[in-house]
């Protein structure tokens, strides 16, 4: 086997070889905070504006301009830290991270370095039914850079172009401990963090828009040994699929290097989604010296207890806890609880429907089945479902009360979805109420018995299957509004009574 070079077309390790090693993975996750304006100026953070229009002297880094910290960004960052069970420091500081790049107009990024606002968090993941706690090393705030564009312009052959709209967008960087032992665990962690941050409204976590970006530190060690191997930092893992692919590739590459007698180099590698491979970007010798020092243009950040308490009070129940509660309180199956806590909107919708109906499991089936089905067909989000959670709960309650049949409910629901009306309005207008009134039913059943003497005879002769036909006749006569169970009971009773006579 060749010693793999840090370029493409290398031999990867076999599955057997890989199995002899244990990967050690930590993630660095950048999350765009869902603020209306940038972190150090009043420019909007919107996506898709014409290049270099959402800019001002501050985010353009013009001479003399100064940053002013956005309070909303700090609030969202604090929520992220609370959601990831981090310790929050009352006193923290911003620092300059110095490097030259055309989309970094100040020549430095304003970040936090030796005094981040938050450290020592924990997140639980479940992989193959096994629960595991992953450490969060730290969370800090920083500003985003602009975007360099190398294609698509008239002079792209000779020049690169820079769009500074994104410059100054508020970010949180979440750094995890090297607690992950497989690409599946990394996938699960990123999923969990994304879900939690969406839940608390910290970020949309839209990966396509770059609101969630991920880098990974990866090393491998022979199974059963303790010392960490040399790590490579893999960048550009900007979808869940890429994260898994890149990690699997990188693990196989490192094992191959070691198995062939080589040593893994400490370096930064870039993942190429087209080839599915990682390639060396810069070695340790060429690592940047960012020359961090405290940002003199900002005063230290002090987080008052009262402020933190106020933010804590607004924190919603987090998905993990909610999931557990849905199982214990509503008797949901684990799978259903997972689906119904996948987003905050879904969980809130379900919970309202469950409470209104008094039938949580039936409500769960309706939400996951009919509602989500129709929403999917129309590519709509549950947050703007035409049927309100209260109205769906009310529908389920009416089924449970026997007021309408399940079959009728399906029709009513379709109409509710189309018009947004509550079930009551549709039932009223279309006269769809289920007939459970015994006097009324008794007359119809007697009528059916009278009109079908042959079938009655067969039934009495012991051919009980004919009962279904008679039930059908009653249902037809009532335009489907009769309660099937009540009809069956009545038929049996009246035919039986006859026989006795």
């Amino acid at each position, binding site marked *: 086997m060749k010693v793999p070079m840090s370029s493409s077309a290398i031999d990867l390790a076999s599955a057997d070889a890989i199995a002899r090693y244990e990967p050690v993975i930590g993630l660095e996750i950048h999350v765009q905070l869902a603020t209306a304006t940038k972190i150090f100026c009043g420019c909007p953070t919107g996506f898709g504006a014409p290049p270099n229009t959402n800019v001002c*002297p501050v985010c*353009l*880094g*013009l*001479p*003399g*301009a*100064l*940053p*002013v*910290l956005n309070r909303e960004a700090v609030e969202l960052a604090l929520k992220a830290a609370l959601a990831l069970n981090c310790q929050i420091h009352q006193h923290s500081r911003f620092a*300059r991270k*110095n490097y*030259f790049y*055309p989309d970094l*107009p*100040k*020549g*430095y990024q304003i970040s936090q370095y030796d005094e981040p606002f938050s450290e020592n968090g924990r997140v639980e993941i479940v992989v193959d039914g096994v629960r595991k706690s992953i450490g969060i090393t730290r969370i800090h705030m920083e500003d985003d850079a602009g975007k360099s564009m190398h294609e698509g312009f008239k002079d792209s052959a000779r020049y*690169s172009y*820079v769009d500074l709209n994104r410059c100054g967008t508020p970010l949180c960087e979440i750094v995890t401990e090297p607690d992950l032992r497989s690409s599946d665990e990394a996938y699960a962690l990123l999923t969990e963090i994304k879900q939690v941050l969406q839940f608390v409204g910290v970020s949309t976590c839209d990966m396509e828009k770059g609101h969630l970006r991920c880098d990974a530190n990866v090393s491998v060690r022979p199974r059963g040994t303790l010392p960490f191997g040399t790590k490579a930092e893999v960048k550009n893992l900007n979808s869940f699929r890429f994260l898994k692919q890149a990690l699997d590739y990188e693990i196989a590459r490192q094992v191959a290097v070691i198995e062939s007698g080589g040593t893994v180099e400490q370096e930064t590698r870039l993942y190429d989604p087209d080839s599915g491979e990682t390639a060396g970007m810069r070695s340790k010798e060429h690592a940047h*010296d960012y*020359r*961090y*020092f405290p940002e*003199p*243009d*900002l*005063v230290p950040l002090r987080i008052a207890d009262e402020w933190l308490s106020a933010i804590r009070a607004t924190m919603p129940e987090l998905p993990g806890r909610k999931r557990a509660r849905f199982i214990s309180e509503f008797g949901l199956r684990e799978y259903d609880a997972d689906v119904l806590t996948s987003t905050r909107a879904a969980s809130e919708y379900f919970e309202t429907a469950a409470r209104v109906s008094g039938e949580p499991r039936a409500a769960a089936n309706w939400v996951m089945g009919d509602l989500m089905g129709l929403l999917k067909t129309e590519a709509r989000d549950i947050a703007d479902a035409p049927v309100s959670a209260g109205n769906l709960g009310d529908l389920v309650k009416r089924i449970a009360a026997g007021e309408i049949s399940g079959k009728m409910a399906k029709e009513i629901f379709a109409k509710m979805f189309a018009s947004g009306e509550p079930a009551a309005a549709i039932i009223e207008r279309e006269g769809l109420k289920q007939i459970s009134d015994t006097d009324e039913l008794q007359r119809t059943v007697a009528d059916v018995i009278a009109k079908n003497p042959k079938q009655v005879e067969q039934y009495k002769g012991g051919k009980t299957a004919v009962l279904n036909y008679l039930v059908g006749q009653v249902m037809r006569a009532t335009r489907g509004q009769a309660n099937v169970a009540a009809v069956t009971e009545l038929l049996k009773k009246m035919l039986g009574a006859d026989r006795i006579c």
Partner: protein
Amino acid sequence: MKIESLTIDAVRQALGTRQASAAELTREALRFAERENPRTGAYLHFSPERALAAAARVDERLAHGEDPGPLAGVPVAVKDVIVTKGVRTTCASKLLANYVPPYDATAIVRMEAAGGIVLGKTNCDEFAMGSSTENSAFGPVRNPVALDRVPGGSSGGSAAAVAQGTAVVALGSDTGGSIRQPASFCGVVGVTPTYGRVSRYGLTAFASSLDHIGPFARTVKDAAILLGAIAGRDPADSTSAEAPVPDYTAALDGNVKGLKLGLPREYLKDLKGESSDLLYRGVDVLKRLGCEVREISMPATDYAIATYYIICTAEASSNLARYDGVRYTTRSPHSDTLSEMYRNTRGEGFGAECKRRIMLGTYVLSHGYYDAYYLKAQKVRALIARDFARAFEQVDAIVAPVSPFPAFKLGEKLDDPMAMYLSDIYTITGSLAGVPCMSVPCGQTAEGLPVGMQILTRHFGETTMFRLAHAFEQSGAVN
């Protein structure tokens, strides 16, 4: 009315009695300044359109019987590191030779709101780095008192304009003495207010934790009026102070009886010749005015220069990174790659002093050196600040020299950066502590070269500082 010796009061009186309109006064001031400027080169360029527009607003306010503001119609020279919307702001650097800012510094906005007129932009050391204004990419400034001498620096142009009479007052910036030292060299009043007293928004950064905007004037009162107009909290500068701005002129009553003054031993031990004689004469005047003078000790002073040149270069290396040729910086035309563009733009654009400081600053922040240099310097800075805090437990003000020597000859120290750095010894301690300090004229050497006296007070103690300087000025002991 002699344009070159106007004061703010004289301008107010001229406007109030309709002796002249603000527009007439501005035109006259521009005519005079444009005619006289070649003698010193104090101004880099003038801003007649902006000046006349501002004057028209003042006249309009006067016509409507409104208060035109404390600086109404007053011609102001502005150091070219303070950004002015629509008016070229070069920082005396080739890199910004054609840079026209799209916004105004807060100090400019406030100064104009008070009726002030921006006459033009003054020369200085490139990005305010220097003590002689010889580091300007556009040529040196000559000291109006002695044309073969430097005006001091880095705000040499602003000091020279006020001394020459081509502006009534001026704005400068001070990082380690860049207002006080040229004020001393040119024989005018120069004030470095408390750090955070005047917003830095729109002041092109050299060393952010040390940069101040402050006034130059021919009288203490004018300096106090100008500071009053530009001081105060600015939401655009997180480091600007909330403390209310007192009426500085109310304190100019000459009453300094019983004020306790400290003379720091460490500042005086090496002071020689006429600079020393003039300072002690000044101290005697203050004693006669009723001040109690005692010797004090500020032991951390010896480390001030090293501390200052580590912190200011570290911050400068970061602040000057943005001049990279990508957007507004003059880009070197012959570069094929990004790294060539950076190197050529910065290599060709920055002058020697800026390069020296960028390299020093990059070095002291580098991995493995940070603790030994930058972090240690911050600790020493805290010690220097403690010296001041302790001193102000005993005294109301500190009296000190501004510079070890009066204005030197053009070119005399240009090849010896170390000698140039050492000349900052008396001014940088106040800068590092962030306390208010000023230079007030204290007499002239036998050759007729001005020498200033430095007055320093506790944080936000500008009122005491102005009271003392004003009483000293009014005593008539000087001149």
